[in-house]
């Protein structure tokens, strides 16, 4: 099979313990690529000595795992995009997969968009599944809010991002993590220094509440009670009248007739 997929792998951090690990969304992207039975390569830009990179080599899906992880050695505090764009230009895969956001650092989710602009690829955000149609185009399912899915078709080279909640789940195999190779690459282009923003530890954001607080009974009442006397009330209508009134109401809300 001729399909080539490159997965962009970043380092993550466990939300509780703070230990370095592989990023959840990137692992999902890797699992999706492995499941497809395509020729999969993975690349990380950063420190090749990070222990957490071995986690990527141990992820298996469809009984396959990575044999080799390319790591472009770029010191921290530098813009990784030139090195990555140069690497992907030379590799020229059919599909590039990445997680939607990095777990460490700014995590603005702009990397995939900058790559798509630089490489001229089509970009689809937040996909759940990927397959290749008979004519060589890609068929994607995109995750929307409220449990909905959208079918999309894409011709030509593609960058897709995958959320941390995607359905594919890989299985970790320790032996493969030990056996896999990490290939160190030197960046062919210079990576400029990044302007560091000022950073402060996050404080919990206050939740938006309705005005008023007090003891538990008052808070419960405030949370569960709404000012009454706004709604329309039908007292003992016939079943058909009630059904018509509900249908009219749902139509006004755009829920009738159901799609």
């Amino acid at each position, binding site marked *: 099979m001729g399909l080539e997929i490159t997965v962009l792998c970043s380092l993550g*951090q466990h939300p509780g313990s703070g230990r370095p690990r592989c990023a959840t969304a990137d692992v999902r992207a890797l699992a999706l690529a492995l499941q497809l039975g395509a020729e999969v390569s993975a690349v990380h830009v950063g420190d090749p000595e990070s222990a957490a990179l071995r986690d990527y080599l141990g992820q298996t899906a469809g009984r396959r795992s990575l044999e080799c992880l390319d790591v472009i050695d770029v010191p921290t505090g530098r813009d990784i995009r030139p090195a990555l764009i140069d690497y992907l230009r030379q590799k020229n895969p059919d599909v590039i997969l990445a997680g939607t956001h990095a777990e460490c650092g700014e995590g603005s989710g702009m990397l995939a968009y900058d790559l798509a602009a630089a490489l001229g690829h089509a970009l689809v*955000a937040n996909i759940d599944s990927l397959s290749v149609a008979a004519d060589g185009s890609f068929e994607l399912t995109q995750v929307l809010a409220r449990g909905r899915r959208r079918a*999309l078709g894409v011709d030509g080279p593609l960058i897709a991002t995958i959320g941390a909640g995607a359905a594919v789940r890989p299985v970790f195999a320790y032996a493969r993590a030990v056996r896999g190779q990490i290939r160190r690459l030197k960046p062919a282009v210079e990576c400029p220094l990044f302007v560091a923003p000022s950073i402060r530890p996050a404080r919990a954001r206050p939740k938006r509440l309705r005005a008023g607080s007090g003891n538990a009974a008052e808070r419960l*009442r405030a949370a569960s009670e709404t*000012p009454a006397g706004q709604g329309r009330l039908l007292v003992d209508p016939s079943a058909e009248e009630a059904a018509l009134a509900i249908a009219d109401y749902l139509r006004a809300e755009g829920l009738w007739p159901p799609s």
Partner: protein
Amino acid sequence: MPLRRRARRALQTPVAGRPLRRDPRAEREPGLAAAAHSAATGSAINVGPSGRLRRDPRAVVRQAGRSATGRLRIDRSGRAGTVSHDRGASEHVDAGPELICIEAPAFWIVVVPDYEGGRLSSHDRDVFGAARKLSDGAEGAVVAVVFEAGEDLGAAGADRVLCFDDAAFAGYAPDRRAAAIVAGAAALTPRHLLFPDTAVAGGDIGRRVAAMLADSPAANVHRLRADEAVSRADGDRADYLRAPSRVLLMAAECELPIGADRCCEARRLEPPAIEPSRTTITDRGLLPTNPGSVPLAEADFVISAGNGVTDWTAFHALAEVLGAAEGGSRVVCDAGLLPRERQVGASGTLIQARCYLAFGISGAPQHLQGIVRCEKVVAINTDLHAEMVKRGDLSAIKDAQAVMPALTRLLEVRVGGA
């Protein structure tokens, strides 16, 4: 009595021509000093001449609201003052909110709401609130860019509206929309472009616009001022502070939406003619989803059963034809009539559906807590005095077993006739 003496001292008025005497006791207990002022306001709780709080039962009844059933709704939460104030405000709104017109603004701020199906989400309104916060102090104006017609944007805070309602922008066309926004913005040269940072709508288009403008946007911004944008980053462990970028992707609840007492004019601007760009992405429409498999927390439309439902075949049939997710009260789930993950309420799922259809649910406080974030509630119950009937935007006092099949029949007739 010491209290009475203290009150008399606090209430003493300065004699004309003499300097005002300080009263240390009144300073220590400002409630007593304020007694004279609050006595004239006519609120239900006054301070008597002795300095004690006195509740006027007639004023309590006057200020209480009426429920749909005509019963008194007395607010004992201690917020009576704010409630009566709110009522005064809503009377003011009936007279018409203040219309704000800005003819020649100093600068523009572009807001691109998700505006899904022509409706503003609360996230969209928050983003408008953040834009107004930037523009109001500095004579700026807000332009909304939307891709379909719908709800009034002036009430959310848009001074101008740029509407590209061409068929080429319908569905999933983020690259075309981004190109249109950049072209529309080129004429106005806005100071900032604000997007709600949602996964596949605002966040997607906003990042495309940022890539086209070669900007590095601040994402997930939860605090925005003219000189500072604060993004939640590093896996929600740190805040990144920087000067606001041109493109800003705003988090939910980043700012309060504008109040109901203000309204902007939302004047339509003529959108520039744009040749839709060639795209390699084709939208093949939404996939049919099984509502039963959608998690209750994500469902848009929930039909829920309580102890008043005995005809479960009719309930499941109605849920299927309506395409709604099924939910139930604790009683129903305890009895094993619905699986546990379908339970709505404090010990089940807190849902945020757009519409909640409750059959035979009386409305325990724990259940009502679960539907606090539902927009519209329709209640069908045999008990006129049930809490759920009070909560409902439309309530019918009728047996659920009669209404459910009637609704199913009505739907089948409509679909068959169409």
